């Protein structure tokens, strides 16, 4: 294990609700999925339709399940119910006009999506960000991670029969949403970045509020930890369920907590650093067994680490300009646009013509709460991209669902599906 790996070995012997003495090592657990009874010779399989409107499918996901008794033989997912054609729409919009579309893909981490798109556009145009903007974007990304992981924790605990953590998690999410509203004016559709800067600067109230959040948030995490991590029902429902080995996780292109829970210490923030993540001190939690329980541990620890990053970001938040000093990129203040001829021309050109990007293409991957969110932009020199491709982490993670669920019980399928942490807005785009 590398130095930055946080050991997440389970220290709860004898708490397995199924009466299993110890956890199987990862490879063995994945090779032999737990069979609940032999398949009946000549028995009939049942075809069960789950979703698209079902509270446990976390959105409009439809699963067609072939069952042998209660054992899942095959899962065939159907997606696309929420397809909105964002990538097609993006080809008809200026770069800054695409940012509101990114809010609506993974709507549980809108600010991180904004950052991902803006970074790709900036790489395409060769723009250097100001120090204040860089730190604010780190804050935006980590706030999103906390929101997304809290929603994941709440909904998953509901799926598995625990109601209390849901209330605690959503309370914390609410506090972040209030801060988000203070910063951007919106709770969900933030659209906080612009190419070359941010839509708005933060106020002193925001900084004070975030500081207060950072100080009090770990208490909730510890409470959730105490109520779930060693809970016999939780452990029994999640351990050994839906395991993926490291090799399989790589072969299925999993990313984010899904990949790390399987023991692959890959985090885009560490391994392909963007913004100024290489200068923050934080650990990357890595699991050992690749099952639902390890995914829970990894996400819970990531919340602690996000909090750590937020604390450092608040300490270093520099003063100075927020946006790059390029009038062709950044809209002038309204008062200048109405009084200064030159500023008005720039305003007009930006709104009417947009910002032109040079011919070329750029791929930027950022570590979103769900996994690696890639933005691939191809430009032919005009103000609208030829191609805007989102590499959707939850779409790619969801593709491994049939592999993970086969051989498990139907009720385990719910736990496994919850552990993938999907957002259908992003899966279907």
């Amino acid at each position, binding site marked *: 294990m590398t130095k930055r790996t946080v050991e997440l070995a389970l220290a709860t012997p004898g708490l397995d609700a199924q009466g299993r003495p110890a956890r199987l090592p990862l490879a063995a657990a994945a090779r032999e999925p737990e069979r609940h009874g032999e398949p009946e010779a000549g028995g009939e399989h049942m*075809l069960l339709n789950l979703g698209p409107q079902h509270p446990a499918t976390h959105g409009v996901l439809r699963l067609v399940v072939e069952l042998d008794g209660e054992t899942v033989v095959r899962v065939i997912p159907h997606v*696309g119910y929420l*397809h909105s054609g964002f990538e097609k*729409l993006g080809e008809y919009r200026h770069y800054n006009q695409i940012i509101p579309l990114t809010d609506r893909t993974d709507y549980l981490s809108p600010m991180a999506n904004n950052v991902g798109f803006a970074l790709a556009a900036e790489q395409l145009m060769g723009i250097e960000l100001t120090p204040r903007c860089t730190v604010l974007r780190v804050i935006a990304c980590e706030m999103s991670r906390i929101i997304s992981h809290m929603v994941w924790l709440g909904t998953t605990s509901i799926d598995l029969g625990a109601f209390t953590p849901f209330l605690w998690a959503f309370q914390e999410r609410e506090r972040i949403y209030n801060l988000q509203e203070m910063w951007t004016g919106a709770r969900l559709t933030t659209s906080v970045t612009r190419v070359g800067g941010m839509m708005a600067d933060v106020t002193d109230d925001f900084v004070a509020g975030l500081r207060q959040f950072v100080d009090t948030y770990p208490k909730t995490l510890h409470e959730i930890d105490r109520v779930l991590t060693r809970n016999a029902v939780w452990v029994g429902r999640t351990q050994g369920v839906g395991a993926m080995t490291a090799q399989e996780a790589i072969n299925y292109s999993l990313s984010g907590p899904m990949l790390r829970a399987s023991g692959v210490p890959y985090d885009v923030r560490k391994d392909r650093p963007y913004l100024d993540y290489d200068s923050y001190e934080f650990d990357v939690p890595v699991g050992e067994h690749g099952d639902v329980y390890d995914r829970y541990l990894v996400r819970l620890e990531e919340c602690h680490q996000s909090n750590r990053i937020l604390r450092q970001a608040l300490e270093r938040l520099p003063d100075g300009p927020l946006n790059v000093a390029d009038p062709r990129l950044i809209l002038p203040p309204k008062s200048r646009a109405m009084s200064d001829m030159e500023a008005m021309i720039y305003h007009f050109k930006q709104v009417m013509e947009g910002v032109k990007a040079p011919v070329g293409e750029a791929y930027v991957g950022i570590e979103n709460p769900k996994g690696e969110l*890639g933005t691939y932009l191809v430009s032919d020199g005009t103000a609208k991209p030829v*191609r805007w*491709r989102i590499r959707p982490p939850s779409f790619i993670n969801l593709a491994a669902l049939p592999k993970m669920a086969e051989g498990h019980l139907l009720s385990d399928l719910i736990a496994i599906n919850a552990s993938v942490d999907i957002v259908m807005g992003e899966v279907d785009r």
Partner: protein
Amino acid sequence: MNPSAEALRATFGSAIGRAVESCGDTIVYVDRAALLDVMAWLRDTPGQQYDYLVDVTAVEYRDRERPLELVYNLRSLDRRVDVRVKVELDPRGDLTVDSIVPLWRGADWLEREVYDMFGVAFRGHPDLRRILMWETYAEGHPLRKDFPLRGRFSRAEQVRQALAANPEAHYSLEELSIAAAYDELPPDMRERLRRGERGKIPHSE
């Protein structure tokens, strides 16, 4: 420039086209016949070890003369290096390439999406169906540049088709092939299947 580009040229010779750099990423153009060999070589050769498939997608340019490009983003998790492999196809010609699902299972849905959005057929794909659009979608492939933003059909026709669609009948051929499931379906659906509305029935009549 990523040294893998030169290594590819030394190994595969004329099957490797030009190699260019854009925003720090190396892009290597590969002949479509050699795609599977090149990908397997990149994945398994010591010193290359591009073991992680980041993304599969396609680009069609507004310039009608430019070829449609298939884009494969590869990454070596150990070496922390990326390379982008591209295959050029004639958008008005044969859009068939070898599937890389035998190498990466993760390519399954990504190739289905490219098939759905661009109409590129992947030879050897285990289950090449539309994924984001529904299976009976008849308007074409939405991300092609000749596809209008609002779709090919009129709004009235789109509404008519949406209302006429029977959501219950939306089972894929694979699902219908599941043993004994046919007898469990509601009678009206069985009747529609018998009429051949949705593919073949594996064992009936």
